[in-house]
């Protein structure tokens, strides 16, 4: 299979790892600012702000690239939720993670890299949709708002203006950090712990569809 096509084309893999790099930088510098009294800090507060702002702007550009790539190269279709994904999809997938995976049961939604219809299991779809099309936009919009704090209203719904934006920004970042933990762990649920990471790194999925192949949630 050519590396520029299939479920893990080059543009998607570049986006994925660049996104990870920027997100980790943002996490560290965000943590550095939030807990600035921790000693010794990785970088000074001022440097941390500069890096955080720069990485945030780059992340926005990268997110735009992600949206463009999804629409241009058809990756968006993998996120579309069908009725079957909800019932019985979510329950079947959750039951697999909670029980079937221990017993060695077959994956309820085996991944077929040649399929034009499905790349993600139902839980993946729900979480990826929430992360990429809800939490990420919230993080980006609130981040940009905080780049121009003097334009923000002093009061929002009776709460201090800048503080409200900052709290939403900070704790959205936290939730994405939690997602990253789960996402990384479920990346180890392939035939071998490194198999799924290999797909997202090299793009190679092999000539034949493996019946138990899974992608990280």
């Amino acid at each position, binding site marked *: 299979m050519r590396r520029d096509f299939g479920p893990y084309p080059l543009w998607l893999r570049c986006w994925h790892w660049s996104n990870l790099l920027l997100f980790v930088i943002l996490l560290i510098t965000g943590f550095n*600012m*939030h*807990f*600035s*009294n921790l000693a010794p*800090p990785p970088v*000074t*507060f*001022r440097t941390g*702000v500069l890096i955080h702002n720069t990485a945030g702007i780059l992340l926005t550009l990268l997110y735009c690239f992600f949206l463009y790539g999804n629409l241009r190269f058809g990756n968006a279709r993998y996120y579309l939720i069908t009725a079957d994904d909800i019932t019985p999809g979510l329950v079947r997938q959750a039951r697999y*993670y909670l029980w079937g*995976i*221990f*017993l*060695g049961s077959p994956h309820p939604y085996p991944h077929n890299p040649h399929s034009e219809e499905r790349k993600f299991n139902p839980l993946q779809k729900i979480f990826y949709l929430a992360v990429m099309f809800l939490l990420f936009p919230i993080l980006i919009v609130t981040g940009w708002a905080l780049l121009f*704090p*003097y334009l923000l209203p002093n009061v929002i719904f009776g709460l*201090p203006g*800048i*503080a409200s934006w*900052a*709290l939403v920004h900070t*704790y959205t970042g*936290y939730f994405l*950090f*939690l997602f990253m*933990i*789960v996402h990384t*762990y479920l990346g*180890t*649920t392939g035939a071998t712990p490194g198999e799924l990471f290999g797909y997202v790194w090299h793009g190679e999925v092999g000539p034949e569809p493996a019946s138990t192949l899974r992608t990280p949630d």
Partner: protein
Amino acid sequence: MRAIGAIVFFLAAGAWSVPPGMAQTSGPQPPCMQCHKPSDITIDPARLAQSEHGAFDCTFCHTTGFDKFPHTSTRAEMRDCIDCHKERKLTKIAQAVKASVHAKRVDRAFRCTNCHSPHYFIPASHMNDVSEAILVANESCLGCHAKGDTRADKELELAKKHGYLYHAALHLQRNECVACHTPPGQETTHLILPKSEAVKDCATCHAQNSMLATKLYAHLALKERAQQGFVNAILINNAYLVGANRNKWFDWGAFGLAGLLLVGVAAHGLGRWAFARFRRRRS
């Protein structure tokens, strides 16, 4: 600065505004307001009435030499702040002023009234609105340290001088100048430092042990420091400081959730490994 002091004194004495024939000749309570009318530009009677000294007669401070016209009083004959404010705090303040750049480089006899107008002074501790306290406090500094016809012009000019700050204009609007231009770790806001020694480490304020909570908002900080789980809650009334305004409940919740997740993930992984091993042995 000497010139400004002289002008303040001159205006306060009001000598220029007393028309001939209206001079007060004698009497224990000179009717100052007969000449110094509310429309008089020297002193704003409305602001004076609201100030800490609003209830005093003019002659309480303008003691001698005002019973004649032209007034013959000199500054040395007037009451000084220390004549009434003898408490230890003012002595400390006086010491701080002596050590400040104002006394060392501007005027060795730098006076309280150079910055604090005795006619309009309201202590920050008597203001409920922190923004108002900041506005009033910075007005004194802007008088000498910024050029411009309006306050906005002066703030703009000053923002350019503070270009190294992120969002300089916002910092200047929502912070007292003395917060950074006095030594960190000390309660005093009177030991004004040369600009080369001003606080430039952002984490001095942007931290849980924010200097602002113990210096700028000292009078309010004690009662409002930990409202609704926010550390330095008082600062939120006026601004949001990254690092200084953390909500400890949210933070503990986030740490707790991350901890639970890590434990859950570790348990799940361990379970997978144990079950896989068991299955291999059975087969």
